């Protein structure tokens, strides 16, 4: 029965496609498949395997299969839940602020103003700068002693003495969030702007004729039509925010007092500071599972087909 099923599958395949063309297409795809397998699939599977061993590079001779022990140990670790709290706080802040700012900028760029082409170009600049460079730049802006921000605020009389933005555990995460918003807002504009541009002008004109004000226009016409774009932004930005490492490393080193120790930073510490690759791999899989849950939730509740 199995043989006859297999035969009918290939027979169907042969009937639908010319076999020679399929073979040639496969040959053309082969380099990409090798690359994808070699650089994505194999490392993912290898690291999953690694997460089941207690590999510590400082004591490589003691490596043993430990099953899920790495995962259990991490879940019982100091700071684990605090680290997730910090990460989720950071993610909520950067995604929501970035979305609001990105949407606002996209709406402004959609207006017919003088110099709109110029503004549409320069808005991408922060995204073009490497995050590490942006992090260093903001480290200087927020510097307690030499920073431009303290200088301006003091000149305006808004503060009496220098504020230690990066040395205060209650402020440091906000600084990291602001830096991330600055870096990632252009990406959000890049996603939302085309959606705004694709809204048919007829719809807007009809709504105006019917007496819609700006807010009603936005609420009933614009927002529903750009929802797919918002979903893309939410999914991609949340995934990226949950895995943020570079600006934390540059700005605060995870401090002060552990106030900016996001989960990705913890994974880096585990892998490259403590050299425990097994538990670092387990840590990264825990992060991946959380990211996938977020993505699934977004898609389930926000995805709807859009019809004009």
């Amino acid at each position, binding site marked *: 029965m199995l043989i006859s099923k297999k035969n009918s599958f290939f027979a169907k395949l042969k009937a639908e496609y010319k076999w020679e063309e399929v073979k040639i297409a496969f040959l053309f795809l082969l380099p990409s498949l090798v690359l994808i397998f070699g650089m994505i699939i194999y490392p993912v599977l290898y690291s999953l395997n690694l997460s089941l061993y207690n590999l510590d590079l*400082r004591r*490589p001779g003691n490596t043993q299969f430990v099953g899920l022990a790495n995962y259990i140990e991490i879940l019982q670790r100091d700071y684990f839940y605090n680290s997730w709290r910090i990460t989720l706080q950071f993610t909520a802040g950067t995604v929501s602020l970035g979305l609001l700012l990105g949407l606002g900028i996209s709406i402004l760029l959609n207006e017919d103003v003088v110099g709109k082409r110029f503004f549409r170009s320069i808005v991408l600049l922060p995204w073009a700068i490497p995050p590490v460079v942006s992090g260093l730049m903001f480290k200087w802006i927020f510097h*307690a002693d030499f920073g431009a921000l303290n200088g301006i605020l003091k000149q305006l009389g808004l503060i009496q003495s220098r504020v*230690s933005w990066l040395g205060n555990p209650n402020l440091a995460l906000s600084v990291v969030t602001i830096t991330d918003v600055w870096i990632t807002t252009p990406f959000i504009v890049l996603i939302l702007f085309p959606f705004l541009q694709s809204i048919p002008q007829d719809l807007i004109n009809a709504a105006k004729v019917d007496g819609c004000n700006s807010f009603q226009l936005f609420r009933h016409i614009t927002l529903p039509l750009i929802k797919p774009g918002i979903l893309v932004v939410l999914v991609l930005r949340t995934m990226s925010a949950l895995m943020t490492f570079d600006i934390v490393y540059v700005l605060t*080193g*995870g401090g*002060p*007092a*552990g106030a900016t120790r996001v989960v990705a930073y913890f994974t880096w510490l585990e892998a490259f500071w403590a*050299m425990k690759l097994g538990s670092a791999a387990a840590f990264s899989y825990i992060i991946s599972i959380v990211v996938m849950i977020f993505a699934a939730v977004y898609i389930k509740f926000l995805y709807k087909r859009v019809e004009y």
Partner: protein
Amino acid sequence: MEENPTIKVNYTTVAGEVYRAKLVTMFAAGEVPYDIIWCPTSWLYEFADNGWIIPVEKYIPSKIWDDLAPITKQTLEYNGHRWGLPWYLALGFAFMYNREMVKKAGIAEPPKTWDEVIEQCLTVKDKGVCRYPMSFSAMQDMDTWATFKALLKAMGGKFYDDEGNCLYNSDLGVKALQWMVDCIYKYDILHPTCLETEMHGAIELLAAGETCFQLKVYYYMKIANDPTTSKVPGQIETCLMPGPSDKPAQGGSLGSSPAWGITKYCKNPDAAYRFLEFLGGPIGNKMWAVERSLFPAYTSVAKDPDVVNAIKGADVWGEQAKYGVFELTKNYNLPEMKYSAELTDFAMVEVSMALTGVKTAKEALDAVVEKVKELKTKV
């Protein structure tokens, strides 16, 4: 090389932040293209235990070994073997001050006790000479943890008792950390940049004339006095490390000697040793001393006039070394050694919590001691 024309040396430099990860990864993979590597003290024993470096006692002549400073000998000997030759003698932390600022404040001589340090900082501040007279590493990083340990030692404290019990949360430990906290909140004398700048950044405060006193690793004094980059060249001096009130100026410091070792993958250890002796012997130590102000690990080299002229403060640090102790305990089975990465990472967060007011000094150090106990169960 004139004396060894058949030996060719290829030299590779690696950025400090990735050096350990690169090295450990290569050893774990069993592919190490290097014959000689640099090993800070805490790694030396780990590498020796893993069999990654080879003992070299059969190569070292007695005249070279006998000339080494006592702290260096303690560093290089482990488990009955000798594991390399020293790059320099790390004298640990030094107490530095701006001579002109101190003079302007009417202070006759630098402080000898930690209470005098506070008094002189307040005098300098009250007389308007300097707004933030004190600086030391206070950011969440390993240098801050090292600063605490140096202060604990300088106040007469110990890290472990004879039974191996951790003493970080002893009265003296809490006093040392509280001293750091009080500099920030009670006396308002610590430069705010210290809370957000990593270890190299704090020395720039001294070089910029922004602070008067500094507790930092000794070789940074050269940078602070460098006429090409410093705003106060030649004004930075050093003095004996302040001590407790019953032992003024006898605080001493924690010393060690980062070493050069020969890897087990070296195919020609005899030739490698000849280069090792150049690099880590008296000739190499003198070269590093004259060019980079790295205090030599050899007693004869420390008295060399070229070295004495090159290292400002050499006479003070030579005297300070008498009160110094070896940085790490020789008991490798203590968590401090076997799990130094985990302990340092944990401890620097706890110290940062104390310095930012999230926890008290006692709470932070109690947590560190609990961590030591937890790691002890793994050893």
